[in-house]
């Protein structure tokens, strides 16, 4: 049996009070709940405070470049379909630097889970506006306030018909752990956008701010109803819905189009010499 201790306990470089601590807890809980062993999971992250998360548990890890975890995850999952592949990175990583990969990943529908630690700010680089920062928020880099309209990852994911799109809050670890479990279990691209306070740089969207607004979706909410979902996804303000906002698990995953993946990890498939000879002879 897998227990939470299998995932270890590490000192972190995060600030005390940071929402990342709770997200880490929820991740471990979810994996334990799913009975996934550390060597069966591969975490892929970018650069940022959020992206340090995989260093704080026992697992396979590829901590790559800022903004580039999704393509790395796509390659890794395709190379070894047996791995549970989880991307963990910030709002800057996924919606800023990595925005193009976000769009492509939804379309490609690779069976990976993406946990976006969304603190609405660039934490590691000390508090510049991120794509999810509200318009008008003042930072040292945006002394006249952030000028762009904020990015709502859920409305885009739903508009694009993502396989699974959820919103969590670091202040509700139980719900979050369940959402992560559902996301990992979902066959296809699964997004969990996780709101969390950055105590050092986000003085607006504080723990209390989120706590006051985040409301779990009611049990009767049907995440398969696209029209309801797109409206729910766009809700932001005094009430911010949390939970599974949309799912349409019936669409094909990327891996299903590559039948040879059923033969297991590519690393061990070797070269089919008969096939190679055939290929060669087509050049005669």
């Amino acid at each position, binding site marked *: 049996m897998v227990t939470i201790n299998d995932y270890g306990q590490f000192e972190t470089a995060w600030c005390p009070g940071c929402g990342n601590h709770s997200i880490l807890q929820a991740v471990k809980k979810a994996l334990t709940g799913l009975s996934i062993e550390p060597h069966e999971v591969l975490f892929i992250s970018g650069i940022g405070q959020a992206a340090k998360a995989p260093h704080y548990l026992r697992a396979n890890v590829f901590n790559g470049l800022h903004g580039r975890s999704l*393509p790395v995850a796509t*390659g890794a999952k*395709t190379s070894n379909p047996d791995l549970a592949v989880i991307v963990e990175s910030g709002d800057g990583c996924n919606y800023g630097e990595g925005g193009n990969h976000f769009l492509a990943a939804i379309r490609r529908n690779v069976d990976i889970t993406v946990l976006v630690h969304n603190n609405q700010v660039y934490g590691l680089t000390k508090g510049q506006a991120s794509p999810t920062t509200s318009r008008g928020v003042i930072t040292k880099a945006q002394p006249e306030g952030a000028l762009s309209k904020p990015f709502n990852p859920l409305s885009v994911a739903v508009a694009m018909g993502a396989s699974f799109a959820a919103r969590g809050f670091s202040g509700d670890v139980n719900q979050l752990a369940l959402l992560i479990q559902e996301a990992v279990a979902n066959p296809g691209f699964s997004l969990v956008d996780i709101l969390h306070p950055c105590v050092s740089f986000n003085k607006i969207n504080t723990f209390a701010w989120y706590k006051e607004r985040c409301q779990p979706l009611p049990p009767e909410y049907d995440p398969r109803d696209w029209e309801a979902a797109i409206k729910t996804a766009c809700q932001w303000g005094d009430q911010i819905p949390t939970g599974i906002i949309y799912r349409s698990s019936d669409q094909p995953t990327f891996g299903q189009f590559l039948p040879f993946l059923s033969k297991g990890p590519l690393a061990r498939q070797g070269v089919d010499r008969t*096939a190679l000879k055939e290929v060669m002879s087509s*050049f*005669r």
Partner: protein
Amino acid sequence: MNNGVLNLLIGGEAGQGLVTIGQLMAKSLVRAGYSIVVTQSYQSRIRGGHNTFAIRVSPKEIHASQEEVDLLIALNEETVELHRKHLSPGGLIIIDESLNAANDKSLRVPFNELGSSRSINIIALGIAGSLLGLDAKLVEHAVDDFFGHKHPENVQENRKALANSFKWCAAKEITGFHLPGISNPAERLMMNGNEAIALGALSAGLKFYSFYPMTPSTSIALTLAAHAQRMGVAVEQAEDEIAVINMALGASFAGALSMVGTSGGGFALMTEGVSLSAMTETPVVIVVSQRPGPATGLPTRTAQGDLEFVLHAGHGEFPRAVFSPGSVEECFHLTRAALYLSQECQGPVIILTDQFLADSYRAVPPFDVEKLASVNTECEADLTASPYERYADTGNGVSPRHIPGLTENLVVADSDEHTTDGHLTEDLTSAKKMIDKRLRKLDLIRREVIPPERWGDEKPDLLLVTWGSSKGAAIEAAGRLGAEGMNVSALHFSQVWPLVSQHFLSTLEGAGEVVCVEGNATGQLARLIRRETGFLIEKQVHRYDGLPLTAEFIIHELSS
């Protein structure tokens, strides 16, 4: 025709099907046992404009293209205008009699008498085949093979048009273009440089190839895609080149032998990924197929302008290797070598090719599939100390590599500076150790460097130095000058990094004069040689008009 060497050039608009004629002619020639060098020249458009497909053919081995044209198949009048000046003294223009290109050197063919308007290409092929003295049956087979499965309904029509054309032409009794016959030709394959790269990769066990379309690299992807399901290779078109390299690194980390292909502009977007490959010690082979820059430049032409760029691409300092195949066969073998080396040194390895070589069909002896070993990405299980450390600090800098999920060892890779277990560190002493560990791998790469190859005397009066696709032109130039009584040798680098001066410095020093011949404007290999050895190559031949180097060009430049 010179010593049985003949240059056939087909010219016309994009969309007229000249590549089809060219490929069929090339295939026929290869099957008949000739050596060929194809040079394709096309514009960045789909219809119209002016394209050419040149086949240089010879019963003996040839390795370079030629500027002078012996047989010009003109699919339009513009072709005659543009290429008349290249026609050799005895050269002939083949042209539809309805076209206006009055010239005593032209063979005016009644195309619409010989077949339908659908068969124009077949007719041109037939005429040329007949002029070259090819066996009509052999050409017919080539046509059948090509169109047979695509358009079975046209087989008869094609055969008819071909037979008509052979007959019509035979009646003209033009014998000056007959190639010397070859009896019992050995079997060869016909492929271009990009196809050879794809095949080399498949033979080495390639399992993942990602790309974003970019001329002249795209046909590597197309070749792989055509055989992907059969060979069990994931071939994925990514959203951009950044995704391309990062996908490949993800796949490689998870154990798939991985490669990507692009051209200069796409490679520019990959440079951060090159550095990531080095830092995480994740193998990847990057094929950079050069075209003239800067920026979009001349997207369908050839150049050798990106040597220094690929050599220094990526921030920070780390080892790499750069191969520069000089022939289609080298494309095959060096791709295998690159994939092997990428695994051995666990980092980025670059193959630098170009449009000329990418598109240049040649006759290649078949590869012995049984003898081609494939590359393993996993280390031996027993190489593992416990707890497993991905970046264990070893003598040669290479750490035993496990694949995540395939054993119970946890594999941790990091783009930040890290400790031996792969977790990020800010400890400056261990950071320095890791830099040293990674740089030590250069010794290993250096030990396996392919030395430059020399043709001709060890101490010639004149030494032509080249790299990459210019090989054939230099060898031929050396040969021709030799035939004129000079003592000329050629030295070709099929690996341009690292340079091991023991391999070639004495050759440079022993030559009367050294000339570096490159397809760029500033002499990049020459500069690199000076940097690494102190040897200054003052005299240089540069070609940078988008066309490949030829013996003619080199000899002309040397004499001016």
